[in-house]
């Protein structure tokens, strides 16, 4: 699918907003400087398994001149999605006259911000509330456009409307695999001639108490912290990129599923092996592995074991890195962030590995480079994507 020159899809215009700030340069620097400290969650109590997270500062969307009704339907995560898209698209054309008519949009989205509208309505409930009064309470206290804020897909509509994108589209949810699904389907839409450009991106959930409740139910394993952020990149298919001194293209991918512990190991191993086969390279050609920030024991073990199987090596010897000590775990945005780090690394001829005291350790990566990015969905969805670059 991707191994013919005419099918090459290139990456450009990385836009990212994470707890390290705006831009991939800043994230790279933050990683080299050492782990960031998470921030305390507002109102968190001793009972919660997570009381701090990698939060982003709120930002000003006024520059985007949003429609009044649209503003009323923009939730926390949709706002992040819009801002991330803006950061990528703003680089495409300095005159800000980007032509969106042949630009597609493929997004990885989390489940919608939960507490709206019901929680805000409950806050206005009388002290003694009968279940039968809930209907009246909700009808009275729910914001008028909340029907649209209930849909995570409204983020697509916000971006399409704000930037005039009318190409093909899809949105996937809710975990880290959704981010790489967006990359794969966006790339395929270029190869199959549907778009001239594709904006692909992913956004994290807004860190909220209900997310902690849900992740607790899904057996969040412990040391990692949740993070907020959005990461985007533009995909293109064309001659200009091939002539560029530092092109980065998608060389291979594969997606699989496995639910049990054994099946998960097999599924991710198979995804990596098939992605290598599509890229027509042996495992030894991989220079850098950006592994998903797994947050369940079953996925953590599956990922480590699959790496050992595919690379015939102990994980401690692999060129492995994951950015969660600076970004937190960002759901669909996590592998997208890793994809952007890969792009940055291949453009600058460097990679990041685990260094002393939690700081990232830079190493050189020259010549033809291959980087593997993985995603491990909470329910057993596994994806491997291989990028190819050339640093001269």
């Amino acid at each position, binding site marked *: 699918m991707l191994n013919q020159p005419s099918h090459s899809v290139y990456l450009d215009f990385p836009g990212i907003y994470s707890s390290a700030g705006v831009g991939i340069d800043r994230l790279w620097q933050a990683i080299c400087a050492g782990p960031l400290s998470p921030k305390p969650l507002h109102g968190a109590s001793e009972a919660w398994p997570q009381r701090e997270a990698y939060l982003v500062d709120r930002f000003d969307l006024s520059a985007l001149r949003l429609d009044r009704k649209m503003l009323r339907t923009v939730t926390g995560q949709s706002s992040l999605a819009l801002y991330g898209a803006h950061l990528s698209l703003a680089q495409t054309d300095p005159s800000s006259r980007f032509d969106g008519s042949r630009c597609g949009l493929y997004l990885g989205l989390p489940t919608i911000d939960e507490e709206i509208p019901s929680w805000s309505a409950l806050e206005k409930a009388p002290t003694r509330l009968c279940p039968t009064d809930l209907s009246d309470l909700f009808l009275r206290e729910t914001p008028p456009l909340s029907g649209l804020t209930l849909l995570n897909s409204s983020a697509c509509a916000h971006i399409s409307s704000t930037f005039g994108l009318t190409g093909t589209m899809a949105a996937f949810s809710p975990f880290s695999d959704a981010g790489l699904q967006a990359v794969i389907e966006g790339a*395929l839409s270029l190869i199959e001639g549907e778009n001239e450009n594709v904006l692909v991106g992913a956004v994290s959930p807004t860190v909220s108490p209900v997310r902690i409740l849900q992740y607790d139910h899904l057996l969040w394993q412990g040391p990692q912290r949740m993070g907020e952020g959005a990461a985007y990149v533009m995909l293109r298919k064309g001659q200009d990129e091939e002539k560029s001194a530092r092109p980065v293209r998608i060389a291979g991918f594969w997606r699989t599923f496995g639910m049990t512990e054994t099946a998960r190991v097999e599924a991710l191993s198979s995804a990596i092996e098939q992605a290598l086969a599509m890229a027509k390279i042996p495992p030894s050609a991989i220079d850098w592995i950006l592994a998903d920030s797994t947050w369940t024991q079953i996925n953590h073990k599956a990922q480590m074991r699959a790496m050992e199987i595919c690379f015939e090596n102990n994980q401690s010897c692999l060129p492995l890195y994951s950015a969660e000590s600076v970004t937190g775990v960002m759901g669909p945005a996590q592998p997208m962030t890793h994809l952007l780090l890969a792009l940055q690394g291949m453009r600058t001829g460097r990679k990041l590995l685990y260094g002393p005291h939690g700081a990232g350790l830079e190493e050189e990566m020259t010549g033809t480079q291959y980087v593997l990015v993985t995603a491990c969905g909470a329910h057993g969805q596994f994806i491997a994507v291989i990028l190819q670059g050339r640093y001269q």
Partner: protein
Amino acid sequence: MSQRVFVTGMGVICGLGLDWKTVWSGLLSGRSAVKKWQFPGVQNFPVQYAAPVDDCSFANRFSGLPFLQKPMERRIRFGMAAAAEAIADAGLDDISSLGRVGVAVGSGVPDRDPDDFMLALTEQGPSWDALFSKRDQLNPGSGLTWTNDALGASIAEQYQLRGPVINLSTACAGAAHAIGLGFRMIRRGEVNAMVVGGADSVLNLPTMVGLHLLGAPSTSDQFGDRLCRPFDRDRSGFVAAEGAGILLLESEKSAHARNATIYAEVAGFGSSMDAYKITAPHPNGNGAVLAMQRALKDAGVLPDAVSCINAHGTSTPLNDLSETLAIKTVFAENRHYQHLRVTANKSMLGHLIAAAGAPECIATVLSVREGMIPPTINLENNDPACDLDYVPNLARRESVAVALSNSFGFGGLNASLVVRRYES
């Protein structure tokens, strides 16, 4: 080399029936699933009509399937039942025998149980601490503890599938997107078969409040259970429904190798965005035009080859007009739109939201297979601006070689599928 993609199994769960044969028979006879409805224990909710699945009939029908007896979200239960029917309908004891098989499904809003939120209430108001401390008391079938991808993962787990498992979040176009992406995966050779479709249930208090405040569902009591009337002058909003539709898509090679019954071919898929308003479709249907044109191009089909469109047809004032204008634009050459039959299944099924595209695609498949077009019922007074042949009130026997199935989501997220008759 690209593979042709065939529909070899189908399953539907909705207010009209619990299998595709019953639903198809109901559609052809103009039977409606829309009825007077209210939340248990809730008086005077402004929305008074819906097309719910009958819980008693569902429980009786599927009591023999152990995997449906576990606690799960309502939409997931419907989706699992529809998947079981589709796989059985395809004559497969072991679907994993087809080789690499994946799942792509569309889903919408998680099903919120208001009682879960009541757990949070304290003397001082709602408290996340209170809710967290009582998390063991949460309804195990509530969306608070289930996630959007649970249906796809549950189907893959139940049938031991190892291919891609994907959840689409594109509002009311979710199932059509899932069918379209599944079709593409088979066509390009990534998988041999895909379980595709969607499941949804918005008939819960928080979601219905949200939809009602948006002005989307009709609150009229003028027409009783004839409330859902796409393209009619007196249409006043959609009628919410619940259920699921699942199709088994299979490569030509796989279907022929096992001598499968082939219902029809999925020949093309197109998607688009309106880039207009979050709260309304483009008034000229520009996004819908793009989706239909892309689907036709993808199928290599000229507009004049199409004879039937299974419309999105929601019965909302804005959608039905903009969809009519979009159809007239796409099929403008030689005024081919005058020869099209446009049918709106939602007049009988109600609006299954993210799942809607799946039963409607199944009805489209059956139209091309059987040469029967279901009617748009309750079309009693034509809206002068909606001036196509909507097959009013009576099904029509007519040969259909190529048909389109449209699904247009909130915020202008559009998908269109091309279905072609299979000639053996």
